[in-house]
């Protein structure tokens, strides 16, 4: 038995150690990883090849739909966060971290950061596939940086929301169920079809839900158009979702780890 003793200076932030841990989880979780890659490709091909012709015979439907597919896939990729978080609570490992001189909430930060990195990768894959099926980019470098920032912000916000759902859920299975509902939101927006083509009772919902300004802004930036003041709504929604999730998440985290 060696003679280390517990009092040590900490060199590495636990957040970083937990991010590495969560990235390892993503890599080992073969099915989720495969889905995270296959789903974007499938969705892109499905939308452009099957519906594309009918929706826009000129063939530019891919330009229209790419942002929605990016966000749909990001939402899907982020949703596994709720299951990871719920699993950690259930397995007792969070309690073990709590008994150590470590910020136990760093476990959540680790899951969130890993999810952001994972989903940025998935987003790159969607973009590559989009270009392969005929996506014609417009916009300046600055526009693209703006789009990238907004996509990252959206991924961060929705990941945090899923983390909060994982903390609120009573089991990993129900966490999975709650998360599923959120994944339909992009379909009820301006992402896949123009707002005007929706049935009238759906139009107000689609107009005022967060996905519409976010998708419109990303689309405008990527194609070199003018997002108008939609970008303010887009950024505002991302910040609002993030703030809401952080507050809700820390409340639930305190509740679940109450002494």
């Amino acid at each position, binding site marked *: 038995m060696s003679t280390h003793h517990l009092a*040590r200076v900490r060199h590495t932030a636990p957040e970083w150690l937990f991010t590495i841990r969560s990235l390892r*989880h993503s890599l080992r979780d073969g099915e989720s990883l495969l889905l995270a890659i296959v789903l974007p490709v499938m969705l892109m091909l499905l939308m452009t090849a099957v519906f594309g012709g009918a929706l826009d015979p000129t063939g530019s439907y891919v330009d229209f739909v790419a942002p929605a597919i990016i966000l749909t896939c990001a939402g899907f990729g982020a949703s596994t966060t709720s299951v990871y978080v719920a699993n950690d609570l259930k397995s007792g490992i969070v309690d073990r971290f709590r008994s150590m001189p470590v910020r136990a909430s760093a476990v959540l930060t680790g899951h969130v950061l890993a999810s952001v990195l994972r989903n940025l990768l998935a987003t790159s894959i969607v973009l590559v596939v989009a270009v392969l099926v005929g996506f014609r980019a417009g916009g300046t470098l600055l526009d693209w940086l703006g789009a990238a920032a907004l996509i990252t912000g959206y991924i961060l916000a929705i990941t945090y929301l899923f983390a909060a759902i994982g903390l609120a859920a009573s089991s990993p299975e129900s966490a999975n169920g709650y998360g599923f509902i959120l994944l339909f939101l992009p379909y009820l927006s301006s992402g896949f079809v123009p707002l005007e083509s929706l049935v009238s009772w759906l139009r107000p919902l689609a107009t005022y839900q967060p996905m519409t300004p976010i998708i419109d802004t990303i689309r405008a930036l990527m194609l070199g158009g003018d997002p108008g003041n939609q970008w303010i709504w887009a950024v505002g929604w991302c910040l609002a979702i993030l703030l809401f999730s952080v507050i809700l998440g820390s409340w639930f985290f305190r509740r679940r780890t109450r002494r």
Partner: protein
Amino acid sequence: MGWVMEYAIEVRGLRKSFGTQQVLHAVDFHVKPTQIFALLGSNGAGKTTIIKILSTLLAADGGTARVAGAEVGREPERVRRAISLTGQSSAVDEALTGEENLVMFGRLRGLGKLAAQRRAAELLEEFELQDAARKPLRSYSGGMRRRLDLALSLVLRPELLFLDEPTTGLDPHSRRRLWKIIEQLSRDGTTVLLTTQYLDEADHLADHIAVLHEGRIAAHGSAAQLKSALTGQSVQLHDDAGGLRAQHATDGSLRGLRDALDGFLGQGLEGTVALYSPTLDDVYFEITSRSNTVTGQGEQR
């Protein structure tokens, strides 16, 4: 620290209820530094509850608990720096390999990357897990997982170690090996509080044993003290099938033995003679079968 603490753990009047169910009524005990202290008690007696309170995971409703000189409710960070906990159910990362788990815990404890890797290798060897070091924990057997769970608590030698049923699910070989490790830790200066359902384990390992019953410490002392508090030895007469035919209490002296034998012969009994000393099992059953109206038997207070 410049002074020597009198007690590594000091628990006074500890109370805890879950809803309307009062689990701990008034628990008092103390553990001296470097002692191995075993907490016994039936299922649901509250052993895990005590360990959770002492390791800052659960707040007590009343009473005081000091661990390594710090009060658990007031200075949880100080307590956490002194302790290591292996809980009753495994809390390991199933997706990581044994080695990755150990390195992660080492780094969380503040070791650098290389030091953490070196320590992981040492522990894998000590707990005979080298062959499984690179396999994810999902593929581990229950006993292997348990061993890793214990190793994770030892990445740095803790001042105080809490082990909640550490050897449940271990094969006899691994159990012996773990006993050796615990004894060595205690010799090196670690205080150990463990719970167990194996009375022979408490008998073999613990310097001090406490029996938790109906929310209180019903008896405590060394294994020898607890046994001698019972009626003492007896001479037993068994029939050929091994059944008990008669018994006679004795003080263990030559004269006492002769009195017992004379007694049997006087009654015209025949059979095989055996000298019986009470075991920790007898002590345990005696204590846990008492109802709370007859407490005060223990030498506590």
